[in-house]
């Protein structure tokens, strides 16, 4: 496979069009974030003015910090629960209600976010829970846990069961066998799952706006409410930073998944 097949002119054109369709808006946003002009649509030369503005905007920084904390904690909890669920589903093959359990686990994948958000809001109101950091974290955990479970389960599915049996044969009890053989082998998938959960939480607007309370807006909520009053060039700067962060996370996640596949037979899909 040394020789890469040459693309025909048609392929090049369609590829360029497709990529332009996907990334041109983002590229324009990134360029305009360095705009010196106060008007969003008029180019006034290069400047870091709006980045400066953002870093002096208390409310915006607080929202970003809130989003970051929610993303880290919900991703961590979701990874823990999602991994346990994946292990239960792919290793505990014979327990009763397995199909029901896996169906219920994966339901949030296809559930409209509005419904998830609304039902969680009703739950928190019924429980009389004070809405803020923890309610958003819990809501994001329910959203992202299934994604982690999918990634980890596919890795576990491709992992040869006889590896665990070999560990047991060589003197490990089942828990020990899991910790010393299975866990190191699925670790890349767990990392990838965490990253996925982190980015999903970071850019979620719908569920967060249902479950958050006054004074604890996440970054997407804050941006959304600012934009309704008119787009400030500062928003472009914030979005560029978010894009950069997510890009880094996605690159790390796909590297982890690639590492995972080079150690085993097949990759976790990402």
């Amino acid at each position, binding site marked *: 496979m040394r020789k890469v097949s040459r693309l025909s002119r048609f392929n090049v054109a369609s590829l360029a069009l497709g990529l332009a369709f996907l990334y041109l808006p983002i590229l324009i946003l990134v360029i305009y974030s360095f705009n010196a002009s106060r008007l969003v649509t008029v180019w006034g030369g290069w400047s870091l003015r709006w980045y400066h503005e953002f870093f002096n905007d208390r409310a915006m920084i607080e929202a970003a910090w809130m989003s970051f904390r929610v993303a880290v904690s919900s991703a961590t909890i979701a990874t823990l629960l999602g991994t346990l669920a994946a292990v239960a589903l792919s290793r505990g093959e014979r327990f009763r209600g397995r199909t029901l359990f896996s169906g219920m686990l994966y339901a949030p994948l296809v559930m409209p976010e509005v419904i998830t958000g609304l039902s969680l809001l009703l739950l928190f109101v019924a429980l009389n829970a004070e809405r803020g950091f923890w309610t958003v974290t819990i809501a994001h955990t329910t959203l992202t846990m299934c994604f982690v479970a999918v990634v980890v389960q596919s890795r576990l599915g491709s992992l040869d069961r*006889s*590896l665990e*049996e070999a560990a*047991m*044969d*060589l*003197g490990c009890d089942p828990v020990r066998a899991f910790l010393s053989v299975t866990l190191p*082998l699925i670790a890349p998938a767990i990392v990838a799952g965490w990253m996925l959960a982190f980015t999903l939480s970071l850019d979620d607007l719908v569920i967060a706006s249902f479950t958050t309370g006054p004074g604890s807006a996440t970054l997407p909520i804050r941006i959304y409410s600012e934009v309704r009053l008119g787009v400030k060039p500062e928003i472009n700067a914030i979005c560029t930073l978010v894009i950069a962060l997510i890009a880094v996370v996605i690159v790390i996640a796909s590297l982890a998944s690639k590492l995972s596949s080079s*150690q085993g037979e097949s990759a976790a899909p990402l």
Partner: protein
Amino acid sequence: MTDELPRTGAAADAAGGDALPAAGQPLLRIEGVAKTFGTFRAVDGVSLDIKAGEFLALLGPSGCGKTTLLRMLAGFEAPDEGRILLGDKDIAQALPHERPINMMFQNYALFPHLSVRDNIAFGLKRAGMARADIAARVAEMVALVKLEGLEKRRPDQLSGGQRQRVALARALARRPQLLLLDEPLAALDKKLRENTQGELMELQRRLGMTFIVVTHDQEEAMTMASRIGVMNAGRLAQVASPRELYEAPRSRWIAEFVGDVNVFDGETRLRDGHRLVIGTRDAGTLVVAEPREPVGAGKFSIAIRPEKIKLSRRAPVSEVGRETTINIIDGVIADICYLGGTTTYKVKLDTGGIVRASVANSARLDVDAYSVGQQIVAWFTPDDCVVLPS
């Protein structure tokens, strides 16, 4: 059937091991073990004694329960019925890590995140061995399977044959009382497989260990094992030495499963001393030697291995009723299959039946070879026939 055939049990292996239990006492005793998956009875009441120091092969078609039986010995499946006695202890319900038994997996199951050295040391660390002892044992194992210089490699940097050696070393490192091998050579190519067979036998003899190998390859079982247990549909059909299994199969199914065979169905006509005269539809009247356990009158199957059938242009001298009685059938060569070392001729009998005869190609320039359509005589002695219940 001749008398010099070793009989089951009589040729008890004298191979000595350190952990040998009292003389005559089996190392492992399987008693009426059964396992059901859903409604499928994978293993259906198997009883078998395994002697210390023997090399036993479990042979059978896929789905016959041989792997399930092996997995029950390793502890990955718990039998629904029966006992597995190791010494005096019933280990049927013990977990894998509680048994002094190790297994070599079919796909080797090497830990991909560990080096060769760490793979071999894995079980030793779990056993709580001292660091220096582990290093010494690993070095010993590496030398035993001739993997010197590869200690730091990962499994994916090894060839198939090398992986197989690592798997073997890892399973042997804990010095188990019993080593289970699940299709140990199935993933190797033919030449490597033949060499490795020899090495496994040599290793087993040198270590005086007890090996149980599961295989679907009868040649492999015949080559390596001192005893073969043939399994069919969850049951042990016959446990015997390779020679007895081939020359004195206990049923038609075994005769057809192990090697190639011609089978004629017939009925006893006459008993003449220790000869039986049996009338068959396809091969006319045959004179056969009476089996070891005398049989009454009735329907039988006569099994003859293709290499026991001789072909010639003219019939040999034969006198009915004498010791020199020979079964002679006339036919025409219908098909020739040249296999290198041997040639298999398909002979169409005048009665319509087909007989396969395998002839060794003992000379390079075969002036005597028969051609298709040639009239021929196929003959065999009464001792070459095995009488089997229909």
